[in-house]
């Protein structure tokens, strides 16, 4: 059915071995460890230094729900 899937490692396996789990959550989230993924992503709405800067502080996005 899906030749491609059987021929390649699953997406999850691929991502797992790609070296993404290197403690980036700490930087992304500000102060939390890589294990605290939830906390990191919840915080980061406000933590994205991006919006606080001279160069790009004018950017702002918001959900239109």
């Amino acid at each position, binding site marked *: 059915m899906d030749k*491609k899937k059987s021929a390649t490692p699953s997406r999850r396996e691929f991502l797992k071995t790609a070296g993404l789990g290197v403690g980036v959550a*700490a*930087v992304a989230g500000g102060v939390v460890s890589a294990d605290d993924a939830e906390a990191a992503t*919840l915080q980061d709405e406000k933590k994205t230094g991006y919006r606080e800067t*001279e160069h790009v502080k004018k950017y702002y996005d918001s959900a239109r729900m």
Partner: protein
Amino acid sequence: MTSVLDAQLSLSAEEKFRAHFYLLLSRLLGAPADAELLGLMQELEGDDSAIGEAITDLKKLAANISVDQSAEEYEAIFIGVTQGELTPFKSYYLTGFLNEKPLAELRQHMDELGIEKSEDAAEPEDHIAFLCEMMHGLIVGSFGKPLALPEQYRFFENHIANWAPKFFEDLETTESARLYAPIGRIGKLFMEVESEAFLIAA
């Protein structure tokens, strides 16, 4: 907010790592690193993958650079006296000019996805840091529900994959890049991972 939390709880660790990478790149590229960010870079732990090695380089450099030096480097690369060494906008990379059709296409897509920029946003939305922030938001559901992979791919393909790899390559090799060299390499490698992972998922 509850719905965002619920959605995030259902994301696998691997998808969260992707989201964090985008947010990391957004933070690194959207502003000069402050002391907190430089400190956090030193807490990264690279493994023996290609990205892991670039992360280790970044970690070492971050330990040996001051906030002022890092700001000077950011300034030279992205701001400059009249123009920085690099112009990290999608439209510029694809057409040689800011605010051209590639930006219009992004705005249309943002509109479709329910992403708005604030009223006082004077600069174009196709800055690399903004695009990375949007990818992060689309993965974790900051703009509503987390986007399914095919829809994420459509955004990635149309607004990022067609220029960001070249930008990250430029960042790695641009004249003033020291701290930003491994950042460019991390971005370049991450783009490769993303492209391949999307194909596996397709």
